[in-house]
């Protein structure tokens, strides 16, 4: 799904290689938030490498046209730590944004899909409000619902468990696991700075980013 081949970016990556395969759960631990965010930007094609190659869904990013890159991003669901919601759109508009932008479903079908997903993830707050005053966890949940609606092949979770109580964390984990199994070949990639992540997720492969290289963990 995502492959880095001897990827280098000045001051950040130094001939680093990594592969996130179809149907797998992968975790990458970074030392700083800056590294984690930059990694996310590289995986989504927002930041280009100085040298080396990055393949997204089997195609090298530098060969993508802008519309092809957007088509690839459509197949990725990104659940950001802060939710990544647009502050001038209401929560429901945020959740529906990628679906209503990319799909040709009727409003009724989209509404039904959203309501079903919100039920699954246990989002029971008012969705007709602006996201600003919501707690970070709720924003993250709304971001997760937004990603789920697109039925992505790859989901990138950006520190999604940060600041959650063990109870809520296990609920979120359950939802993530169920979502992962819902579609054959769907991969999950967890980006985090917390070493404890590996205690509660079952990753098929885990890496630590140190001094510009990925080190596989046992």
């Amino acid at each position, binding site marked *: 799904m995502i492959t880095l081949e001897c990827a280098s970016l000045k001051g950040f990556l130094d001939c680093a290689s990594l592969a996130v395969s179809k149907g797998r759960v992968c975790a990458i631990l970074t030392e700083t938030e800056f590294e984690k965010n930059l990694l996310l930007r590289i995986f*989504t094609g*927002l930041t280009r490498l100085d040298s080396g190659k990055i393949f997204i869904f089997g195609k090298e990013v530098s060969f993508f046209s802008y519309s092809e*890159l957007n088509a690839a991003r459509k197949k990725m669901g*990104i659940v*950001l730590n802060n939710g990544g*919601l*647009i*502050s001038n759109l209401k929560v429901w*508009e945020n959740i529906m944004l990628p679906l209503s932008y990319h799909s040709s479903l009727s409003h009724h079908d989209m509404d039904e899909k959203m309501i079903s997903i919100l039920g699954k993830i246990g989002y029971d707050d008012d969705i007709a409000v602006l996201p600003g005053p919501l707690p970070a966890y709720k924003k993250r949940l709304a971001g997760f619902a937004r990603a789920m609606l697109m039925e992505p092949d790859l989901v990138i979770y950006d520190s999604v468990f940060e600041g959650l109580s063990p109870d809520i964390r296990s609920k979120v984990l359950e939802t993530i696991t169920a979502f992962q199994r819902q579609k054959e070949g769907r991969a999950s990639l967890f980006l985090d700075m917390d070493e404890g992540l590996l205690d509660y997720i079952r990753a098929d492969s885990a890496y630590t980013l140190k001094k510009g290289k990925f080190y596989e963990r046992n």
Partner: protein
Amino acid sequence: MKTKRITENILDTILYLSGLFNIILNAFKNLPSLRISPVRTVFFRQIYFAGIETLGKMVIIGLLIGIVIISQITSLIGVGRGELIGKILIWVVIRELGPLFAAIVVIARSVTAISAELGSMNAQGEIASIEMMGIDPERYLIMPRIIALTLSAVMLTFYFELAAILGGIIVTSLFWGIPFEQHTTGILTSLTIPELSASLVKSLLFGLVISAVSCSQGLKVSGSITKIPQATTKATMQSLFFVFIFDGMITLIFFL
């Protein structure tokens, strides 16, 4: 050293202007995206904010300006020359004040709003988040703002001019007893294609340049939200500057 700095400044200005031109060009290229529902929503919201919400105030300003202009003209040239009064009213309002006032109102209301909104979205990573969803910000954020602000400027100009002319005619008819027909003759003979085209071209160009400047300044904000006030100030001042430059240029082209 001084020459080098001047050259750099000129190059920066050329680059900036070509950037503005690109924003406008891409907005037209991306027009078909108005078929996409969320893009249309952004477009209608901008039309509502920049155009419809401002309409009432614009009409009142227009009426008052019309009254002021006609009072001044009448006191200058006397009461018995309704045809000439109508002519001057058309020249002043349609050629100059209509597009200019509409542009100033749009600048006061929408330039700050758009540059601050886009600046805050950029600084808080919302634009990156939009891109991560496979949505082109130029289509979703920029194009609807450019087109909506331009259409709003044209619409506000039209209503301003209508209100100013009507206000002027009503006041002179009521207070100075100049027959209504005298005005209409003056107005209809002066309302020629060049007058109307100059007004339309000005308002279109003002709308395009104002929206492009506000989007460009908003998108330049990165890293910290403390840069937003600088961006809004720059956007306002640059918009005013461009509006006056284009106003002079178009007047010269059409009427010299």
